């Protein structure tokens, strides 16, 4: 902004600055709290909300919440792999399958407690992810996509090959019951929603911490420029494998949740469509963003049911209505990619950033705007330093957002 304008509004800006500095102090105090504690506090708030929600809705909505939470775990792992470490996987459905089968076998045949089976499933798939990651670390782009695609196509056929153990096409039945302590009439779907949501929250807290740790920053570094990252002393190969390990572990955990929610683990559930669906959810939500994973999972689970309901309630026959979700899904995918190339979360950040920067910059920018439209497009350079810093702390644009510019 030009000096003249900033002089004119100096009085107003001064008052505002004083207020903002106060707010800033309060905020930076919050910033000093260890991130783990802050994430945990956030998770507790969400957990309370979910507890209220799951108790308020009907049994089918509880089941849908469980499905969403299951997808959140898988998509969150995948979105870190793709969005943070810059690798692609078209085979994440295979990790979900492995996790689901491990859980089913441990719970049915060995009667392991649920939580232990979950951990075992996550560890097993993490190891598998490490093996695949070691091979994948040498591959780039389409070759990596091809290698992971192979896994998604080939792995489910093992269920037919070893049908004695894995139950063939019929699959394995996993029947859980709500703990007796909750009462005899406690709805099973609510219990499933609780288990899946709790697991999803734990996963999100762990991933959020990992993402903002040294590892997370290193992943971003190798994603942005491998050579530069290697020159800075990062072990690129090891970091890439680690990303696969973490992501596959999340996939396996999602498989565990799938097993206890759907109640059946069969190869026909883990087709290529699942892998593509997970990747699509990560893309629609916003790659690299955990909130985006939640958005993507919401779309993945709720859109088909909602579209079918709307179609049939508007007089379309069930047969014709069945095709509507496929069309709507395609349209949503195209629309999101056109309107928000960084997914729903990227779009929200952009809108939020625009609104707040308008409001913040309003006293100073509005008079100067007609004279300097190009500066309005990027108001930051002329802003008082304190104000600019505040804006970033509370609602500043994301890294992607900065690249684009707020205009």
């Amino acid at each position, binding site marked *: 902004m030009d000096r003249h304008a900033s002089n004119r509004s100096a009085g107003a800006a001064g008052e505002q600055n004083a207020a903002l500095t106060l707010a800033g102090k309060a905020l930076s105090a919050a910033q000093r709290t260890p991130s783990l504690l802050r994430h945990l506090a956030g998770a507790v708030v969400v957990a309370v909300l979910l507890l209220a929600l799951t108790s308020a809705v009907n049994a089918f909505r509880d089941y849908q919440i469980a499905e969403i939470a299951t997808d959140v775990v898988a998509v969150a792992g995948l979105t870190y792999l793709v969005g943070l470490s810059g690798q692609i996987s078209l085979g994440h459905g295979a990790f979900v399958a492995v996790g689901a089968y491990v859980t089913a076998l441990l719970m049915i045949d060995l009667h392991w407690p649920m939580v232990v089976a979950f951990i075992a499933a996550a560890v097993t798939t993490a190891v598998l992810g490490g093996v695949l990651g070691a091979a994948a670390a040498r591959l780039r782009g389409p070759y990596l996509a091809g290698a992971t695609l192979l896994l998604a196509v080939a792995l489910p056929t093992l269920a037919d090959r070893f049908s004695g153990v894995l139950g063939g096409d019929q699959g394995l039945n996993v029947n859980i019951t709500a703990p007796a302590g909750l009462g005899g009439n406690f709805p099973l779907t609510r219990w499933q929603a609780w288990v899946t949501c709790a697991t999803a929250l734990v996963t999100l807290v762990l991933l959020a911490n990992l993402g903002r740790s040294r590892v997370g920053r290193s992943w971003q570094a190798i994603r942005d420029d491998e050579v530069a990252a290697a020159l800075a002393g990062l072990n690129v190969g090891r970091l890439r494998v680690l990303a696969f390990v973490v992501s596959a572990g999340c996939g396996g955990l999602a498989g565990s949740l799938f097993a206890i929610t759907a109640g*059946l683990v069969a190869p026909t559930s883990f087709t290529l469509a699942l892998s593509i669906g997970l990747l699509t959810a990560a893309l629609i939500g916003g790659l690299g963003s955990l909130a985006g994973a939640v*958005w993507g999972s919401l779309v993945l689970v709720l859109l088909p049911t909602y579209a079918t309901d709307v179609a049939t309630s508007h007089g379309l026959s069930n047969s014709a209505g069945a095709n509507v979700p496929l069309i709507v899904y395609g349209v949503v995918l195209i629309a999101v990619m056109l309107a928000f190339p960084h997914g729903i979360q990227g779009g929200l950040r952009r809108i939020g950033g625009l609104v707040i920067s308008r409001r913040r910059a309003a006293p100073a920018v509005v008079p100067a705007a007609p004279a300097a439209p190009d500066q309005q497009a990027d108001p930051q350079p002329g802003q008082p330093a304190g104000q600019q810093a505040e804006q970033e702390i509370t609602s500043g644009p994301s890294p992607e957002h900065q690249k684009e510019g707020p205009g």
Partner: protein
Amino acid sequence: MNPRSTFARRFTITAALLTGVAVTAAACGAGGSGGSGASAPGITSTQIVIGSHQPLTGVAAPGYSEIAPGSNAYFKYVNAHGGVNGRKIVYKYLDDAYDPAKTATVVRQLVLQNNVFALFDGLGTPTHLAAVSFLNAQKVPDPFVASGCECWNSPQKYPETFGWQLDYVREGKILGQYVAKHFAGKKIAYFYQNDEFGQDGVKGLDYEIPHSMVVSRQSYQPTNVNVGPQVAALRASGAQVVVSFSVPAFTALLKLAMLKLGYNPAALVVSNVGEDPITLGGLLQSFAKQGGASVNGNALTNGIISDGYLPALGDPGNSWIALFKKIHDQYDASAPFDGNVLYGEAVAYTFVQAMLKAGKNPTRASFVSAIEGGLPQGPAIAPYAYAASDHAGITGAYMGVIHNGVLVQQGPVLTTDTTQGGAVTADTKGEQQAPASGIASP
């Protein structure tokens, strides 16, 4: 840019998001049932709401997607003629794309949200297995699963679940007896889908055909459309008769691969599942077209030996065919009148039969005991096995040969059980006539 702020915000947003979901979900929450005349969930004084999972899209959709509209056509006919004790049947069938994960979801939606009275004619073995435990735990009647898996006949484990169509073991025995009798001394080979369907069928075949006669056993995975290697093995074995437990698409692929390899066994015997001549003829022509060739579907299906447990489509003199054709033309005319539509209408007829028998104010328990008390034969060509200790459906079939796109009956109706020693015997009771009203009398 302070990285901390991003993550703090992410959590705030996640929290906000989930709250948003909470509100939305709560807003569109419980539908609830009730109202006067409600003797059971899904039943009001004016309606009986039932649900189903069907492959309306995806790999199993061609052919099978016609079944539910066929059933619905029959229900519309019943509704237009006074309904079931004055109640109209509302049939909600949802697409599961033949994916068990989706089946689990849509069945929960139907039961927990739409409060259906019963889950009727859920289609597919792997799909319905994803729903059967849930349905029985919820005590929701699960009549007439559209799959011939023996697994539905487990009254102890699944007291709410009933089969309907001829099960694959019985069918295998009937086909096996025919082959053993008519092709004695010939070399026999099996071609079958490597899952419950094919394996149950082969089990039945093995009960009747001596092992020494079987020179080759080739299986296929429904996900791999290249059956060339299996057909080459069949040809190399020198088998003169091939018995196939395959779905329509793979019967067509088998036939085309035989043509391509110049393998022409004396007889091809195909399970009823993969035999519907109209579906098969269409598939043969479209597959050949994809391969750049042109074939006559009707000519290729000529001479295929199969079995049928519903009246033959090509028999306009049959009272059931006349009835179902009339209803089809009135309510479901956009679909071809083929075996799938006939199946849908016939199973819907059986449902109405059971519903009427369940009384003026039916409950889930009275409906289940109505079936367990046995049902009149209806459109099926052989009696049902229904009893408290037996939840299997149709117990027999006739053998036939496809001629000009129609399965033509050869010989009597044969009935049997699912045991190894159980004889395959000619059924002497004969078929029933369709009621003039088109609706069973209670």
